[in-house]
């Protein structure tokens, strides 16, 4: 949604031709006759990045290169490759940059584990905080301080 806005904000107009609003993406002549195979092709291509576009998958992109890649994916599928083999084939040629879902290996583990670790960490802090507030609730309540009493009167007036 914001991509076009951002483009207008930051891009020179000359570059705009690259991402036009024209929906071309998958063309009728690309579609495979076998619906099961075509669905696999769509699945695979929605996970592959169009290399010359901003953050777009080849499934959504209008670029010429994206079309070539879509055809390549279909070619490999028709030749009998499994989904993994097709992806491997593309990654071998273009590098892991084409994968929209980065592999959970090496340094990427940081990316994949960031959420769960943060959840555990935050959960532990939150838990201990709630426990502390809970224990505090068992100690007898203190009398209102002067400021609190003042505030209470204010609230009651409202």
């Amino acid at each position, binding site marked *: 949604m914001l991509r076009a806005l951002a483009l207008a904000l930051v891009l020179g107009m000359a570059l705009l031709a690259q991402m036009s609003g*024209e*929906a071309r993406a998958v063309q009728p002549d690309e579609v495979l006759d076998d619906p099961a195979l075509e669905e696999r092709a769509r699945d695979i291509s929605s996970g592959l990045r169009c290399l010359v576009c901003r953050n777009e*998958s080849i499934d959504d992109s209008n670029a010429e290169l994206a079309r070539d890649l879509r055809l390549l994916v279909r070619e490999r599928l028709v030749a009998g490759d499994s989904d993994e083999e097709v992806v491997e084939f593309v990654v071998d040629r273009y590098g892991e940059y084409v994968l929209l879902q980065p592999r959970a290996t090496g340094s990427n583990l940081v990316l994949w584990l960031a*959420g769960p670790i943060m959840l555990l960490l935050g959960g532990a802090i939150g838990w201990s905080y709630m426990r502390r507030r809970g224990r505090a609730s068992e100690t007898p309540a203190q009398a209102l301080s002067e400021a609190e009493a003042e505030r209470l009167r204010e609230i009651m007036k409202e």
Partner: protein
Amino acid sequence: MITELGHFALVLAFLVACVQAVVPLVGAHRRWPGWMAFAEPAANMQFLLTALSFAALTYAFVTSDFSLRLVVLNSHSAKPLLYKITGVWGNHEGSMLLWVLIVTLFGAFAAWFGGNLPPTLKARVLAVQGMVGAAFFAFILFTSNPFLRMAVPPFDGQDLNPLLQDPGLAFHPPFLYLGYVGLSMTFSFAVAALIEGRIDAAWGRWVRPYTLAAWIFLTIGIGLGSWWAYYELGWGGFWFWDPVENASFMPWLIAAALLHSAIVVEKRESLKSWTVLLAIIAFGFSMIGAFITRSGVITSVHAFASDPERGMFLLLILAVFMLGALTLFAARANAMQAKGVFSLVSRESALVVNNLLLGVAAFVVFVGTIWPLVSEMFFDRKLSVGAPFFNMAFTPFMVVLGLLLPLGAMLPWKRGNIARVATSLRYAFVLALAIGALAWAMQSGRSALGPVGLFLGAWLVSGAAVDLWSRTGRSGNRLARLGRLPRADWGKAVAHAGLGVTMAGVAGLMAWETEDIRVLQVGESLELSGYELTLMDVQRIDGPNYDATQGIVKLAQDGREIATLYPEKRFYPVAKMPTTEAAIDIGFWRDVYVVVGDPQDNGGWAVRTYYKPLANWIWGGAILMALGGALSLSDRRYRVAAGAKKTRPVEGVPAE
């Protein structure tokens, strides 16, 4: 002449902001009433000057003054008037001017309606707001001046990007900025309170309307942008997990967390330091958003003409404000002792869990957004993080949030009984489960996404209804009491139900969408999910500043004609850009979405049709969320707080 006045007003506003950033602060420190009182007229002056400057730029756009560089680059004399006006913020410089206009508007707002604030706090809030303003004025004047002239003015402009010539997108940036910048107000309140060294329930009450307003505006802004992407980009996507989208989504998540934790501060005087920290982080994410959209560092090396100078300047602003505020926080955090006590099962605990889930979800989005940059810089691995990652890493948090929400929302403050809450929600749960199971049975061999989404949606909506109903007491005329409930109660229920509706919409659309891509000859039909679409004709039409090829498509179901759709393919000659105008038959349960493509060699046309179930629920839910926020914002205790001196007849209000 008017342009020069606008430029001059902008410079003056910058100077006023600088003075406003210092004088009231000194005044508050020394307890000098005169110096503190300076803040109010300064905030008004700043707003007036910026408004003047903005008006001057708008005037230049409306009159197509092609001696201004910005107008040449982003306008055209043949453009419709609406888009001449919205073109003012359809570019970097103009949108920054809109940004500071809103900064000063919020400052002025605090000056107008801050009558019940303690004078020192008010002076400090406005001083911090002045600092924010000054930083962005400097950014505009030194790196992105909208008032630069052309040495040789051309005869006509280069037109606005046609994709932006659309009502949905025209009003998307102002709402988004109102949201981003609204968070500057909570930031100012947080920093002012840290300087003051005092945070109490009253602070929570003052800060909450601003958070709520910012969150409402962000909701509307994001919703508009997503809706625009749906009908304009031509294949009906509504969310792409693009860094620029994430830039608006992170502040939304944090603002949602903040407005919940501020409730705890207001009602129970707990979670104080956490709330202050969230307020600081929320504005930090707003500024990161500005940095991401305007520096081009993170997005992609291919398409962005990044401007290092602007990027560095924004990074500097971000660093100064965040480091300053966080240092202050570290120094003062221990001054904010929690007062309220609560047991492990209580509304307070539920809201802690809410904050945990929203906070971690925002963190996941943040890490995913910056990871390509980090990975390339530190690990020399060039990679992409796209929609598949976010769908997998982000969705679980939302599922858990949706599961727990109705339970948490009904827990009482201080000490609750989970069994009692579960009992009152049992019918809602059974209903939701039945709906989910029905969806599961009706679909065959597909993922669990759709049924789970519908279950969560039904659970949230019915949970909200039960929550509302439970507030009407045990006996008597409960229906009448329902109408008299405080608006905050209604707001809460409506917003939570809205979240459910959006969740159901997203899941339904993603799980059950069908599409058809083929070549149709004029007169041919195709079938799609029980609908018959016939390409009746294709004709050429002329628009004000474009030419178009228009398809005429008849939509029928069971042999009965439902609608005639007119998808267009436009070409804007000045910008040399084609756009697609999808034709959509909008319905409650589904959209039928038709796009006409290129003519084929054999005389046919490429036609793409989509059946999109529950599509409108996504935005319907967003509207409900915004409406819920607005209801809550209009609750009588804020209005009473705003005019505390006036006595009003007190109506009976159920105790909370």
